[in-house]
Structure formats: structure tokens, C-alpha cells
């Protein structure tokens, strides 16, 4: 292959590295009204009275909108970027008289500049009827206090939702008789794990600007992963026809799923629609940390049944997920906690997976890289690590004995066949990379510090099977250049480049010959958007098919020029050739296509996949711990990834490295805590600690490729799977270092040091509830 599987530079790399103005706020019109939001200080309240007259008198203020400007009985909507009909409930109004978390929107203010808008915000007088909130998600289900008591709450899909029970979704799936299988196991581990509502923390906060275009339509430019869903969401929120909305995205300063929810768009959209003036909203970091769309907090109860020889026979998982005040991505994320963890264990005879997703009065959760799989894999992989230590078995050895293999059917993965899988090779590779056999489980460094290792495995999907749609349009232009039009959103990941590589490979041309455009609802072909690890696999296949189609068209016109049959010619990227004497160059064909021509040299292709082949990964952490202070650093993280063919090995590697560090952050430093009033304490980058470069040693990534027949050039996805392994790996390394088992993240120095002290004092640290049916002491 000439272009695919090559580490070519990203097409936009040098523009980004030299600081060109290509992001939303760089290109917003200078005369935009500044839009800011007044937010609720209460976790649950009804607005009794709201006075805006004084605020409106501030010089420069254009408008102040409150719930009175939004019909309260009209159809609700969701901000989740999902294919219609969305599984996420329609539970929002643009401005609601009831506020449901600290940070919920109370009023929209638009004015000439920041200063006058800030002033106006401080002059709006609100009288709240404060209600009792539901803050603990363990008490939410069937709590007499309801988060969404309203009658126009609506669930479009059969996801088991019931707003009168604070239930956003409920699901059950199983295969085999789990109780019977567990009954027959030598050992049944019974454990509860807990992960928090971590933040994506992309460097560019949520932001959007809006204008009215030549046709009187609302033109929305936003930092979003989902232009097409955004169009629907905005039209739903404003109750205007979808034909009146256009959404496009410039460069995006990171997404990680955060921008798969339409967090900021509807507010300036409303302002511009009402005033017909350009407007923009730039979320502050504080807003991005307190009123956004973080990971779903989950509590996972795992029962893991195995034999003394290490054979894992059954997994029973119950997940309780906290969707917060609104249901964005609530019904769908939770599924991944089971369906993308349990199938790793291919020898299991039975599984059961039950889930509840509940409403509470905290910030609404959303999509974050890993999308529920991260949480579930922390639980299941940690349980397997605990099993290994109970059995005194090497955790990698235990995996090797139990993992799913290529060609096997995965009952917990919707019964899909494992069409491509190099997980076994990933395990072997990671063992070697981390020098597992030298360190496992722990090595005394002789200075009060120890080094230890821990590991975990992961899988994800490649798009949503039978749902995600990717499309591409390719057209030939002057002198044989190509335009590639896509609706997928490059959010820094490099999909513009990756998709161009696929097109260049098929068209036998140089990367420079392909100009990529995306994404704009008016100009791009339909694409679900860049999420669910779909772009390379789903849209990539559409590009491949599209390029094949265009090749055919090129040959047709070439054949016409050569006055022969289309079947007789061949195209080598530069010329359409009949035989040695009779050929026509691509340049000539391009010129001919624009003069008296009736053969379209433009192709469109749409693709959707009935399967979602999982990428696989094994990861191992080597940590160094100061036993007395509890300070812990990942000095080395080794990962082996099976993403099928990496279309661009450089970009795949950086995806992996970046995802791994996010996972390490989740394991050790990134915390979300609420005070008794429901306020988030980690409301800034000063308090919410994403890893800095001094917080980690080295991250090494290797690729162990399988070949996925259904993907473009054998590719599967990579974007999400990479975040998952650090959580169980670091937690187990911590256990190996200090003997204390942590089942809640993040694991802080304080917890480690105090846990050790408690352990030394003979007080058990854990909530171990393993059942040994035969009363055997293993």
C-alpha cells in the first residue's frame, strides 16, 4: 500500500502549529452579541419570580430571555447527538421554569460586550422556591422526590424509562443460567466498584456563534462533533423548521465526546433567531466543568464465578448509572459497561447484565471517550485482577486462559462473531514491553519506594452496528485534483487526513491531490458524526467505496475519449489506458469532464455496517509508590493495541498515548465531588487535575494488527478503546505496591497512606464479600 498504513502528516498540522485563526472564536464576526447564561445556585428549585427590567436597562444589553419566553408545554428535546429517534429522553426545554442542578440555565443575556452582560447578569432578580434535591444516585430510584415530574417528558425508544420513578433507562440481558453456573463455581467474587463523573477537559471549551444568512436562515458555526444532529437539536429546541438551520464546524479544539452533546449551541441560536443579529457564546472553564456533559458516574456490582484452575465460568453485572439532571446518553452509555467488558471472557458459560440509569439533581452526564465501557471494564477487569490474586495466579496468565478468540461468538456482544482479534498477541507483547516478569508483582527500590505492575484489557466497538451512517462525496476537478466532502468531524484526531489517505490509496494519487472539506449540513453528505469510534471504520468504508465508484466514472469518461468500451480500460491513477498506444491522462479527462460532458465525475457513497468489530487492547502500568506518603506515579505504561490496520500509524499512536493518559488521570487525580448543596468542588483546572507532563513517565504503544475484512483496508477503530486499560491496571498496581485494594477512583496519596496505616493496624480496608461455596480456603 502506498498511502494507507503510512505515517503521513495531518493535512492541517502546520496551520495549527503556527497558530492560524481557524477555531470558532477566531472566525466569529467581531460585532457578535456576547451571550452568557444566568445559572441556578440551587440543585432543585422552581422559579417563582424573575425580574429582568433592571438588567435590560444596562447600556449595551440587547435582550434577556427567561422561561417566560419559552412555551413550557411544548415538546421537549434532548441535547444528545444521536440518530433519530434518540434513545435519550426528550426532557429539556430551552429555558425551564424548574431548574434541576446547580448550574442549570435560568436566563440568557445578550449584549454588546462581556462587561455589560456580566453587569446585567448580576442585576437579574430571581426568587426561587427551593425544592429538596436528589443528590445521592443510590437513593434516586423510586425516591418520592422526582427530578422530572412534568407531563410532557417523553421517551422515544423502548429503553425502560419512567420519569415517575426517576428512571432514565432499565435493561436486562443474559445468556445461560447464571445462578446455576455461579453455584457450581469454586469461587465467586462479589465486588462493588465506583467511578466518578470525570470531565473530558478538552482545551477548547464549548463555543458557538450564529448569524442569519442570505436566505434568512440561521447559520450556526460551532465546535461540534455532530453537525447533522446539531441541526435537528437546534430546530427542536427553537421549534423552527429544520430547513431554517445550517450547522458547520471549523477546527475543533478537542472533543472526546463532550461535543457529541449540543451543550452550547441552542443559546446563541435562540438569541440570533430572535434578534436577527450575530451572537456568540464562549463557555468559561468553570461552566465547562460544572454545567457540561461529563462521564456517567457508575456503581458496578460484579459477581465473578471461576474454578480454582482459573477458568472463568460466569459474570453477573449490575450497573447503576447516574445521568444527572437530564438524560443525555443515559440509556446508551450504560449498555457498554456490560456489553464491552463481559465478552472479553470467551469461555464463560453464562452471563447476566442488568442496568438502571437514574436521574439526580447534579450536572447532566454525557458522552466521554469509552462511553460506559471505561466504567464497566474498570469493574470487570478489576474483579479478574482480584481473582488472580486470590488464586495466586499471574493476571496475564489468567487472561490468556480465558480470553475470547477470533472466530468465536460473543453472546454478551449482541451475539456477534469475533471477526478479527489479536488480543492474545497483545497480551504477550505487553508482558514483554513492561518487563512484567522482572517486576510482577512488586519490587522494593530500597528507599522507601516500591515499583509494581498491574494490567487490564479492553475492547470497544467500531461504530454503532446498524445505526451509524457515514458518507463521502468525491469529485474530480481541474488537472486531476479531487475534492473529498465529508460530514464526519475532525476534532484533532486527524480524520480529514485518514479519510484522504483511504481515498488516495484507492485513486492511486498523492495526498496533496485530495482536498478535504467537512463538515457542513448544507454541503456535506450525511454522516452521523464523529463518535462511537465510527469515523475510520464506517465513514472510511464509505470513502473507499466512493473512491472505487469515482474510479469507475473516470474509466467511463476515459473510455469514451478513447472510443472504446469501459471494460477494456484500466486506470493507474494518472492515465486511463486501453493499450500502449491508446491512453488518456487524468488531466485530459478532468478537462473533458468540464466541456460538453454528460458523465458525472462526482461520486457519492453511503455506508453503514451491520456489525461493529471490536478493537482490542492490553495495557500494563508500572508505578512507583512512596509507601509512607502514598505518592504514586505511573513511571511506565505499556500498551498493545489491535485496531486492525492502522490507517495512519502516527495518528493511531498519538490517539493511544493521549487516551492512556486520560485513563491514568481518571485513576489517580481526576475527581468530581459534590458538596451537600450539590455544587461541584472541582470547578476549574486548578481543582480538577488533569495530568501534566511531569505527572507521568513514559507511555509506550505497540500495534498488534488483526485484519478486519469489513473495514477499509482491514481497519477497525482506535479512538475510544485506548482510554480503558489504565483504570484497572493502575488500581491493581497500587494493590501490588501497598496491599490495599481500591474499588473507587481516583486513588489519592491520602487514601493510599491512610489505607496502609489502617491495614497495618489490622483493620480490614475492603468490603470483600467473596463466597467460597465449598468452604475452601483458597
Amino acid at each position: 500500500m502506498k498511502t494507507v498504513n503510512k505515517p503521513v502528516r495531518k493535512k492541517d498540522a502546520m496551520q495549527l502549529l503556527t497558530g492560524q485563526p481557524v477555531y470558532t472564536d477566531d472566525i466569529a464576526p467581531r460585532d457578535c452579541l456576547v451571550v452568557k447564561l444566568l445559572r441556578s445556585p440551587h440543585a432543585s428549585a422552581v422559579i417563582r419570580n424573575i425580574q429582568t427590567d433592571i438588567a435590560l436597562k444596562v447600556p449595551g444589553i440587547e435582550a434577556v430571555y427567561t422561561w417566560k419566553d419559552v412555551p413550557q408545554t411544548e415538546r421537549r428535546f434532548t441535547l444528545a447527538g444521536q440518530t433519530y429517534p434518540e434513545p435519550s429522553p426528550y426532557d429539556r426545554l430551552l429555558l425551564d421554569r424548574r431548574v434541576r442542578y446547580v448550574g442549570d440555565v435560568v436566563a440568557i443575556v445578550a449584549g454588546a460586550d462581556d462587561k455589560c452582560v456580566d453587569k446585567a447578569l448580576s442585576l437579574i432578580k430571581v426568587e426561587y422556591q427551593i425544592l429538596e434535591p436528589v443528590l445521592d444516585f443510590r437513593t434516586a430510584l423510586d425516591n418520592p422526590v422526582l427530578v422530572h415530574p412534568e407531563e410532557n417528558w417523553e421517551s422515544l425508544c423502548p429503553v425502560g424509562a419512567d420519569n415517575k420513578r426517576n428512571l432514565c433507562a432499565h435493561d436486562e440481558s443474559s445468556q445461560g443460567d447464571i445462578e446455576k453456573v455461579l453455584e457450581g463455581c469454586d469461587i465467586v467474587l462479589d465486588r462493588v466498584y465506583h467511578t466518578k463523573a470525570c470531565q473530558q477537559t478538552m482545551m477548547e471549551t464549548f463555543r458557538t456563534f450564529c448569524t442569519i444568512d442570505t436566505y434568512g436562515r440561521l447559520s450556526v458555526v460551532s465546535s461540534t462533533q455532530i453537525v447533522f444532529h446539531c441541526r435537528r437539536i437546534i430546530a427542536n429546541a427553537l421549534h423552527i423548521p429544520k430547513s431554517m438551520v445550517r450547522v458547520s464546524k471549523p477546527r475543533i479544539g478537542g472533543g472526546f465526546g463532550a461535543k457529541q452533546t449540543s451543550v452550547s449551541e441552542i443559546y446563541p441560536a435562540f438569541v440570533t433567531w430572535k434578534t436577527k443579529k450575530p451572537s456568540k457564546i464562549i463557555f468559561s472553564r468553570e461552566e465547562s466543568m460544572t454545567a457540561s456533559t461529563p462521564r456517567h458516574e457508575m456503581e458496578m456490582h460484579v459477581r465473578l464465578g471461576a474454578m480454582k484452575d482459573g477458568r472463568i465460568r460466569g459474570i453477573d453485572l449490575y450497573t447503576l448509572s447516574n445521568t444527572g439532571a437530564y438524560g443525555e446518553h443515559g440509556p446508551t452509555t450504560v449498555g457498554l459497561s456490560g456489553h464491552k467488558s463481559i465478552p472479553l471472557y470467551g469461555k464463560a458459560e453464562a452471563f447476566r447484565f442488568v442496568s438502571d440509569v437514574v436521574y439526580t439533581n447534579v450536572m447532566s452526564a454525557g458522552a466521554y471517550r469509552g462511553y460506559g465501557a471505561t466504567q464497566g471494564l474498570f469493574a470487570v477487569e478489576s474483579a479478574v485482577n482480584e481473582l488472580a490474586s486470590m488464586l495466586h495466579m499471574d493476571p496475564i496468565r489468567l487472561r490468556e486462559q480465558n480470553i475470547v478468540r477470533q472466530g468465536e461468538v460473543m453472546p454478551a456482544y449482541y451475539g456477534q462473531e469475533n471477526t478479527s482479534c489479536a488480543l492474545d498477541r497483545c497480551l504477550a507483547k505487553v508482558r514483554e514491553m513492561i518487563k512484567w516478569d522482572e517486576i510482577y508483582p512488586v519490587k522494593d527500590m530500597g528507599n522507601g519506594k516500591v515499583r509494581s505492575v498491574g494490567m487490564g484489557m479492553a475492547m470497544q466497538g467500531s461504530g454503532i452496528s446498524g445505526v451509524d451512517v457515514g458518507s463521502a462525496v468525491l469529485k474530480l476537478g481541474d488537472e486531476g485534483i479531487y475534492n473529498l466532502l465529508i460530514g464526519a468531524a475532525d476534532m484533532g484526531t486527524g480524520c480529514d487526513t485518514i479519510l484522504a489517505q483511504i481515498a488516495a490509496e484507492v485513486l492511486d494519487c498523492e495526498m496533496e491531490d485530495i482536498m478535504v472539506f467537512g463538515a457542513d449540513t448544507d454541503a456535506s453528505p450525511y454522516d452521523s458524526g464523529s463518535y462511537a469510534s465510527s469515523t475510520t471504520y464506517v465513514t472510511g468504508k464509505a470513502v473507499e467505496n466512493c473512491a472505487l465508484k469515482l474510479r469507475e466514472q473516470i474509466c467511463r469518461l476515459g473510455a469514451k475519449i478513447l472510443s472504446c468500451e469501459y471494460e477494456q480500460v484500466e486506470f493507474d491513477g494518472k492515465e486511463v489506458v486501453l493499450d500502449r498506444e491508446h491512453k488518456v491522462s487524468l488531466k485530459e479527462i478532468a478537462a473533458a469532464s468540464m466541456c460538453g460532458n454528460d458523465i458525472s465525475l462526482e461520486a457519492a457513497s453511503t455506508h453503514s455496517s451491520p456489525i461493529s468489530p471490536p478493537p482490542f487492547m492490553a495495557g500494563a502500568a508500572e508505578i512507583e509508590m512512596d509507601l509512607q506518603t502514598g505518592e504514586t506515579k505511573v513511571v511506565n505504561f505499556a500498551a498493545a493495541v489491535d485496531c486492525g490496520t492502522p490507517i495512519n500509524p502516527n495518528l493511531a499512536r498519538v490517539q493511544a498515548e493521549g487516551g492512556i493518559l486520560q485513563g491514568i488521570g481518571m485513576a489517580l487525580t481526576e475527581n468530581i465531588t459534590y458538596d451537600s448543596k450539590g455544587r461541584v468542588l472541582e470547578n476549574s483546572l486548578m481543582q480538577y487535575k488533569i495530568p501534566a507532563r511531569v505527572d507521568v513517565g513514559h507511555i509506550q504503544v505497540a500495534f498488534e494488527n488483526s485484519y478486519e475484512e469489513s473495514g477499509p483496508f482491514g481497519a477497525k477503530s482506535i479512538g475510544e478503546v485506548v482510554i480503558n486499560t489504565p483504570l484497572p491496571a493502575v488500581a491493581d498496581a497500587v494493590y501490588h505496591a501497598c496491599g490495599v485494594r481500591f474499588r473507587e477512583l481516583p486513588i489519592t496519596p491520602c487514601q493510599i497512606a491512610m489505607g496502609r496505616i489502617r491495614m497495618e493496624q489490622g483493620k480490614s480496608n475492603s468490603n470483600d464479600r467473596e463466597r467460597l461455596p465449598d468452604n475452601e480456603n483458597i
Partner: protein
Amino acid sequence: MITIRRYKKAESIEEAWQLNQQKSSRIIGGMLWLKMGKGTVQTAIDLSGLSLDGIEETEEEFRVGCMATLRQLELHEGLGTYTGGAMKEALRHIVGVQFRNLATVGGSIFGRFGFSDVLTMFLAMDSYVELYKAGVVSMREFAGGGYDRDVLVRILVRKQPASFHYSSVRNSQTDFPALTCAAARFEGPAGADYRFAIGARPGRAVVIEDSGRILSGGDIREQARAFGEYAAAHVPTGSNMRGSAQYRTHLVKVLTERAILQMGGEAGC
């Protein structure tokens, strides 16, 4: 973000002092902490035109101008040598180079923030603040005092025959500390005198000394352990997002004990 109505670059310390007598005035240092406030400052007083941004070293002392940056402090060779690298260790974790190029020593000390590595470090040294009206006041007294409207002009560090050690525990490398510990061992005619400053308790740093002469003669390891326990018993701690009071008390013990062993010339890390 704080609102500032008027900016005034002071032409003399006297002018700065005069302006600062208004309650709504603020002397601005690096602006890093001040900026995050929510209130209104009528007059922001800038001392940056008064040549107070130098670090002078004489035979007897260091004279650090209030507008010297933390980065200057970190890179100052004399201070580095005098403190045996402890000064740099106290500063290198503070956010990043660009931050330390702005943050001023005067701002850090005047603020007397609980989390301050800078205050912790200076408290362990024989140091003083030079206030425009109140004159030279010991750092310890200043650290224990309340905010007034005087102008902090300089920080003075008297050179003593001493060795220093600085350590802090942080949940992540550039985070606020969970605990800071600066230690000094002053060599006197009657033997060594130890002084420890413990900060980020999370309250303001406090000084603890060996008034009971735990650290005099005998096995250094046993003494260090005993002093660690003494310190843990006498330094008040509290809980916040970065650690519990119990953990901090535990850290007081661990960090003081380690500091003693380090300064006692123990071979080791």
C-alpha cells in the same frame, strides 16, 4: 475576574502607601491570585516602576525586592547555594515557568496563603519582611499577623551557618501541596538548632522548633522518629479536598523525620 477601575503605577513607595490607605485599593503583585477574585478594586497600585525587582546578595544577607518573581528566586545562584537547592525545590512545582515569571515574592509572602510553598520556605530561614511603615519584622511574626495596609518592600534573609531541606507532598506534580515542610539546621556553638516550617496544613504555615531538645545527641534515627511524632502532635492540621487532617498529621511526621535524616548527613536518596 476582578474588576479594576483605575490603574496607578506608583512613582514612590510613599505614593503607593498613600494610595493603599483606601480600603478599595490593592497593591498588585503578579496578579495571579488577585485576578481570580470577584470584587472591585478602585485603584490597582503597581510597584513595578520602583526598581524593587532585584535580588541582592551581600556577605550577611539576601535582599529580595517585593517585585522579584518566583522564577528569579528559583534561578538565583546565591540562594541556590545557600539553601543547598531547597529554594528551587520549594518553587519548581508551582504551576509552570510562565506562572513563576509573573508571580512575585512580595505577593506570595504578603498573601500569606495557606498553600504557599514560598512562605513555608522563608519561614524556615532567618528571614524578615521590610515594611514601609512598620519597618523590619520577623517573617514568623508577619506570618502570624493579620492583613493591614502597609507596603511590603523587601524580604531579607540573614545568612546563617545552616543547611536546609524542602519537601512537599502533592496529589499531582503541579497541584497545590497537601503538605509542605521546610527544615533548617542552624549550626551554633552549642550544637545544631533545628527549625521546621509546616504549611498547607491546609492553614498558613507554622514554625515548630526543638524546644524540648529532642534532637541533641544519640542515635539520629531514633531522634528523628521522636521529633516526627512530637511535630505531628503539635502541628494543627485540617481537612480539605487534598487530604484529611489525619493524613496531614501523618505527613508532618514523615516529612520532618525525613528532613532531619537528610540534613543530618544520612546517606540516602
